[in-house]
């Protein structure tokens, strides 16, 4: 295997809260090759967005302890990179789109302003050229009447269109890596599919790697070749999506799979996982999923399980299930 585009090792991120230091992400690691797609799935609070923000160094300095571990991108550790160099990477090499296109665009600036800013900044285009590029980018994200829409303010656009504008901003400098943090969650179902299609097409066209973050395993499955499942700040399972769907090796993954509505017939009742994600301030001894796990055993509550290889490229953090698989 060649050197990956991105390699994250032992990433740990802590926040300061009223109740002391809180670990939002603990020892997360993964690799991503050029033009590959990785899906990160988990409930809100699982640490998936925090992981993504760490890649760009976007945490508030005042409340975040310096993340530990390493994020190797193109031969440099992003966590050690000075702010100036990091700024060249942000928006230029690694771009990001966010969940809520309503609030992610600046309400007092026009679409043209917000797109041109990126290309003026990273590619040194002048105002007129940047504006022309903005129109071209709006075309690329399939916004009709781009020459006219470019002068609109965000509140004059629909939610789907705003997310397209966000995507246009993100791909403006042809980044090598695009991080999409719940890009469709705030949108209507029909728009969701369009946005995912658009992302897929742009990925092929521009040859980007993509990290897609979602709480919806269905969305991930459709999009990503590899999937990483996070729970309460830790990776609980990572596998090629096909293997993950065929043989989930963690009860949490199974729960997420059961919660996907099947496409071929209507269901009256969807399976859900009992309970909710634990309060990050509360320390849970042993396996963090144990309080909600249907297959919990006594040992689960005592020692925290390690992430172990269970198959080809397949890692999981659930010894009981592994034992059961191994000894039928």
């Amino acid at each position: 295997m060649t050197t990956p585009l991105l390699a994250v090792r032992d990433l740990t991120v802590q926040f300061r809260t009223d109740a002391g230091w809180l670990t939002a992400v603990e020892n997360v690691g993964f690799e991503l090759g050029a033009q590959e797609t990785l899906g990160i799935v988990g409930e809100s609070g699982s640490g998936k967005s925090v992981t993504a923000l760490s890649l760009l160094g976007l945490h508030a300095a005042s409340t975040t302890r310096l993340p530990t571990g390493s994020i190797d991108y193109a031969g440099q550790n992003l966590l050690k990179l000075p702010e100036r160099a990091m700024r060249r990477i942000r928006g230029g090499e690694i771009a990001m789109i966010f969940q809520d296109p309503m609030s992610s665009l600046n309400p007092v600036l026009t679409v043209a302003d917000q797109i041109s800013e990126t290309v003026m900044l990273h590619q040194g285009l002048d105002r007129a050229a940047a504006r022309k590029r903005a129109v071209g980018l709006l075309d690329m994200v399939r916004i009709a009447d781009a020459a006219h829409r470019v002068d609109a303010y965000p509140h004059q656009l629909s939610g789907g269109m705003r997310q397209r504008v966000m995507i246009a901003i993100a791909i403006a400098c042809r980044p090598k890596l695009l991080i999409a943090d719940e890009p469709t969650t705030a949108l209507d179902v029909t728009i969701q599919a369009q946005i995912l299609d658009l992302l897929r097409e742009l990925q092929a066209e521009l040859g980007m790697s993509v990290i897609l973050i979602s709480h919806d395993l269905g969305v991930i499955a459709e999009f990503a070749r590899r999937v990483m499942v996070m729970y309460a700040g830790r990776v609980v399972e990572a596998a090629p999506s096909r293997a993950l769907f065929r043989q989930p090796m963690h009860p949490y993954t199974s729960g997420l799979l059961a919660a996907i509505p099947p496409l071929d017939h209507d269901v009256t009742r969807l399976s859900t996982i009992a309970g909710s994600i634990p309060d990050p301030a509360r320390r849970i001894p042993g396996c963090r999923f144990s309080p909600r796990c249907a297959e919990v055993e006594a040992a689960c509550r005592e020692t925290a399980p390690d992430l172990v290889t269970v198959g080809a490229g397949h890692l999981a953090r659930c010894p009981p299930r592994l034992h059961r698989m191994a000894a039928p």
Partner: protein
Amino acid sequence: MTEAPAEFLAPRRRFQVLRRLARHRSFRIGFVIVVLLTLAAIFAPLITSFDPTAMRARIRFRPPQEAYWFGTDNFGRDVFTRCLYGARLSLTIGLGVALLSGVVGTAAGIVSAQFRRLDAMIMRLMDGLMAFPAIILAIGLAAAMGPNIGSLIVALSVAYIPRTARIVRASALVVRELEFVDAARVSGASSLRIIWKHLLPNCMGPLLVQLTFVFAYAILAEAALSFLGIGPPPPAPSWGNIIAEGRDQAVDAWWIMFFPGLAISLATLGMNLLGDGLRDVLDPRLKVET
């Protein structure tokens, strides 16, 4: 924000609020300042043996010294004593204005929110009052009603009622739209009961914050009015009229006007700090970072 408003009065939550207040630095400083000033005002006769109004020609214009901490004025009165007794007047007026404008403002705001037909009328009246700069309105009213404490309190209250009414109305309107209030209404609860059980408790936080600031403004405004000669008349000391009287000697006997000004600043600072603390803890919309 769908937080159940009655929670504000629930004992556990109330305890939490108190604990967070006790941990809030500016609240603690403000609290100490205000308590000390209040105690000083109440126990003025025990703290000083001088008479605030007795004139003694032999000891005029004494600079600050051991016997007269803040010096004496042109009538030989002890400035420290006058400041202490002045605290009574200033704090009484501050409290009076906070209470009166609080009660009337709350009533106006609640009525506006609950009885929508009166809303436009009440709010236009408030807009009208707000069009006058507060201090100028107070000057006009105080002048019309005559120079005494009561009219000063009323005048300043009228000036601050509109803001209080607006804040209360806004908070009440938020709860009014919540489901459990609808439920109460549908199940036949009377307007009065809805106001008492649901609207009022939810307004308490923002109201308390507002009234602390009104208290602070009132102290400043009383001083300004007294300075202009529209406050409580001398010889009874108020912080404002001590400054006004000492002004002509400000160059030669700076202490006469300096110390009462310091007292005003301290009292206002204390109330402002209290208000900042209350706002951080009680008003979730204005949540402030750690």
